């Protein structure tokens, strides 16, 4: 009886259906309102003033001339800002003192009747500083480099199995290379925006974030308020990619300003301000050493990653963690070293760890394939582990090999001549390359409420967030299946912290975690309905679920999604231009809930991977101590003309150990492996290895 209810063992009717995004009409008509688009009565505009020094003190702020300008009501700075309590993120302790920790840090907010007046007031604000010399460049030999205890989110920083040094010394083939990836900025299309409103001692904010309950929690701690006094709404969010994964400065600044004025305040960041204030991907320097026999069987894998953090908050990216679970080897060592600098704190950016880490690992594997004269797919199959190499734990499911085989078939890999630099088509050198993809498939506790209404419809309330993923649609499908009703009988409400604590849209854990709470609440409600012989009593019926205990009780296995990417490049070795005419991605990620939105999300990840490979790079200006190319003209993301054919498909994967719906997250895996596949293809086209991202024209030519 329960087996018919369990999508993990029997696919339910809507599972996998590519139904249209439920919010598509609101989005194509412009009706969908994002956080900076709620007009509140008497609302005031805030414009953030940023520090022009990377380190030092504010000597003086003279607001008089700004305050005399038309429309300006107040200047919020460290002298009049409400006091904040620590919320576990020191970057949120804004305007609490005269110290400046990074260039671009908020030092004041000018509050005015109109956007134009606020901006002019901010431009005119007279702030003087006592600058100190700053230190902003990541280098592996920096004396302040240290070993963090944990890396994001909570992995031990180092791991060691066997004797890597001895195995490398004895190996028949050794690859020992250094790879580098630059700082990158998430740049969701919607800049961070918050509209904040105090009603006495309760705070309502419309905020652009990936998780309203996480932001609610931060605001409660910062302002010493109970949960019941803070409501965070974020119904539509214009992308995040990690940059909105937790409370970021605008929500704090808007809330403080609204408190000061006693009126609603909106703070929207400019695109330029986003390059300093909302996080970025750390640059990395990575040494990968592989030792194998002549057939390519790994004897040793050593992955050491250097990255940066700020001096006020430790963020240690888990760059080398991917090497702990990818390939079988008796000797396996990973380590992370971290350098605190006078920079804003790096944060999550789509597949933190896996994206840069896999660039190094999957590039090194390609170099090993070349050295051993083994096909890169065969090399990976030869090193396919039965158990997680680092921990010895079983995988809940692992279909990397199936992805490799299916991708090779779709791409036509068997016809490939492995020799580099021998194909020419007009001005283009042609090459092909591949890489494996992976991303953890974790779950986090969430709560959900489902109400049966007397008209036979159901309302599902969960503090989920749809940042473009399709979660709104996927969760509605899951709820309808769990309730055994048609889709149109279910109304799903998300993006409101009043619905209770829930996981953020991050770590590829959103839909997986939320689906569990939705299914649990729906099953409870069906049980209640049974007791009422299927009839909804006049007042309706309500079920609540919390998956805290269920998640804690999960078996100790390791859970990952896998994939393989194959692609073709065309390289003009005179101009250094690289084009990617064809990309193929095959993934194994449990049940796919919605074939349409899943395909879009995976393609989107691969496109961001293409940008990572060829375009994206935040350049540190050593003199000013800040990222130089801080707008969309200087920081290039892939545009329509950069993208040609992309095909995405998936292996039908049954995994009974992820969550009741048998799903694994897919938000991040698309970007993992793309950059290595492109670099490997560029080698195949030109005969030159590209070990530094992005693969700029000057690097191709030199």
């Amino acid at each position, binding site marked *: 009886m329960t087996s018919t209810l369990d999508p993990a063992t029997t696919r339910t009717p809507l599972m996998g259906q590519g139904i249209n995004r439920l919010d*598509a009409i609101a989005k194509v008509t*412009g009706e969908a309102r994002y956080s900076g688009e709620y007009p509140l009565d008497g609302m005031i505009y805030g414009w953030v003033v940023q520090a022009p020094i990377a380190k030092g003190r504010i000597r003086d702020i003279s607001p008089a001339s700004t305050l005399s300008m038309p429309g300006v009501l107040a200047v919020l700075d460290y002298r009049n800002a409400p006091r904040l309590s620590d919320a576990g993120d020191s970057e949120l302790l804004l305007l609490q003192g005269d110290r400046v920790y990074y260039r671009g840090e908020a030092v004041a907010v000018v509050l005015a009747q109109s956007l*134009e007046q606020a901006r002019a007031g901010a431009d005119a604000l007279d702030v003087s500083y006592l600058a100190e010399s700053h230190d902003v460049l990541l280098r592996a030999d920096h004396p302040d480099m240290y070993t963090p205890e944990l890396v994001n989110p909570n992995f031990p920083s180092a791991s060691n199995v066997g004797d890597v040094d001895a195995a490398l010394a004895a190996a028949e083939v050794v690859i020992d290379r250094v790879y580098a990836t630059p700082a990158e900025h998430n740049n969701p299309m919607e*800049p961070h925006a918050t509209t904040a409103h105090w009603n006495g001692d309760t705070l309502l904010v419309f905020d652009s974030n990936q998780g309203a309950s996480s932001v609610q929690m931060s605001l409660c701690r910062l302002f010493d308020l109970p949960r019941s006094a803070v409501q965070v709404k974020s119904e539509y969010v214009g*992308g995040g990619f990690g940059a909105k994964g937790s409370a970021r400065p605008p929500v704090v600044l808007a809330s403080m300003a609204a408190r000061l004025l006693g009126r609603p305040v909106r703070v929207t960041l400019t695109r330029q301000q986003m390059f300093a204030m909302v996080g970025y991907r750390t640059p990395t320097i990575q040494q990968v050493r592989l030792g194998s026999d002549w057939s390519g069987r790994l004897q040793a894998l050593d992955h050491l990653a250097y990255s940066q953090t700020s001096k006020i908050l430790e963020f240690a990216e888990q760059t080398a963690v991917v090497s702990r679970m990818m390939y079988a080897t008796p000797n396996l060592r990973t380590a992370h070293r971290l350098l605190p600098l006078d920079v804003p704190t790096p944060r999550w950016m789509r597949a933190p760890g896996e994206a840069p880490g896999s660039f190094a690992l999957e590039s090194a594997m390609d170099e090993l394939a070349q050295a051993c004269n083994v096909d890169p797919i065969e090399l990976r199959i030869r090193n396919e582990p039965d158990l997680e190499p680092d921990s010895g734990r079983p995988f809940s499911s692992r279909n990397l090999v199936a992805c490799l085989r299916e991708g090779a078939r779709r791409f036509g890999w068997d016809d490939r001549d492995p020799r580099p630099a021998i194909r020419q088509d007009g001005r283009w050198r042609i090459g092909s390359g591949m890489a494996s993809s992976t991303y953890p498939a974790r779950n986090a506790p969430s709560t959900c409420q489902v109400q049966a209404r007397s008209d036979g419809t159901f309302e599902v309330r969960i503090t989920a967030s749809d940042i473009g993923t399709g979660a709104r649609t996927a969760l509605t499908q899951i709820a309808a299946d769990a309730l055994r009703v048609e889709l149109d009988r279910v109304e799903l409400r998300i993006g409101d912290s009043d619905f209770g604590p829930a996981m953020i849209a991050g770590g590829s854990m959103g839909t997986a975690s939320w689906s569990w709470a939705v299914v649990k609440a729906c099953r409870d409600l069906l049980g209640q309905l049974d007791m009422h012989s299927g009839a909804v009593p006049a007042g309706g019926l309500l079920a609540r679920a919390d998956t805290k205990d269920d998640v804690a009780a999960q078996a100790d296995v390791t859970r990952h999604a896998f994939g393989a990417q194959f692609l073709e490049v065309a390289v003009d070795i005179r101009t250094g231009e690289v084009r990617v005419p064809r990309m193929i991605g095959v993934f194994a990620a449990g049940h796919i809930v919605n074939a349409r939105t899943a395909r*879009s999300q995976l393609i989107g990840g691969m496109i961001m991977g293409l940008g990572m490979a060829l375009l994206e790079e935040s350049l540190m200006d050593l003199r000013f101590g800040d990222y130089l190319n801080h707008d*969309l003209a200087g920081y290039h993301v892939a*545009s*329509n003309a950069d993208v040609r054919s992309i095909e995405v498909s998936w292996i039908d994967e049954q995994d009974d150990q992820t969550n009741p719906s048998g799903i694994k997250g897919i938000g991040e895996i698309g970007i993992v492996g793309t950059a290595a596949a492109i670099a490997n293809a560029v080698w195949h086209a030109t005969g030159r290895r590209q070990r530094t991202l992005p693969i700029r024209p000057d690097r191709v030519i030199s």
Partner: protein
Amino acid sequence: MTSSSLSSSFTVTVNGEPQLLDLDNRTTLLDALREHLDLTGAKKGCDHGQCGACTVLLDGRRVNSCLVLAVATQGHSITTIEGLGTAERLHPIQQAFIDHDGLQCGYCTPGQICSAVGALDEADRGWPSAATADVGAEKITLDDSEIRERMSGNLCRCGAYVNILAAINAVSP
């Protein structure tokens, strides 16, 4: 039109309706729409003409509304995403974006759709692009590379380009 050193009052037609506005001279068309007319469909992604999220049609031609001063639109006609179609009566390009899932977060989407309307019209008039092989040709054939090129002023960080191309292909003649 009356004006002081700081503000002007003027009339502009927005989605077919004449609007009398009295605005700070520094106000962009984008901010006039979003902050003064509550037409928030046009999005602000950069405010610098670098992303296309704010694209609207000015006398039928696509413009980045963040680069147009509102006072300069006096006497002109603006069409925003709200004027292009509604939930009950979608414009064919809006429908095509839904059918081909040419959107994810939706933030670039109104700009993409307005831009596509403009691009199709430009091609119809025979205006060449950087992807046009013969710039003297009378007729433009909107093949994939033409559409990609003409739509490259509209960034989509979610990476919906493959589906945006398919959507525009579905409506282009």
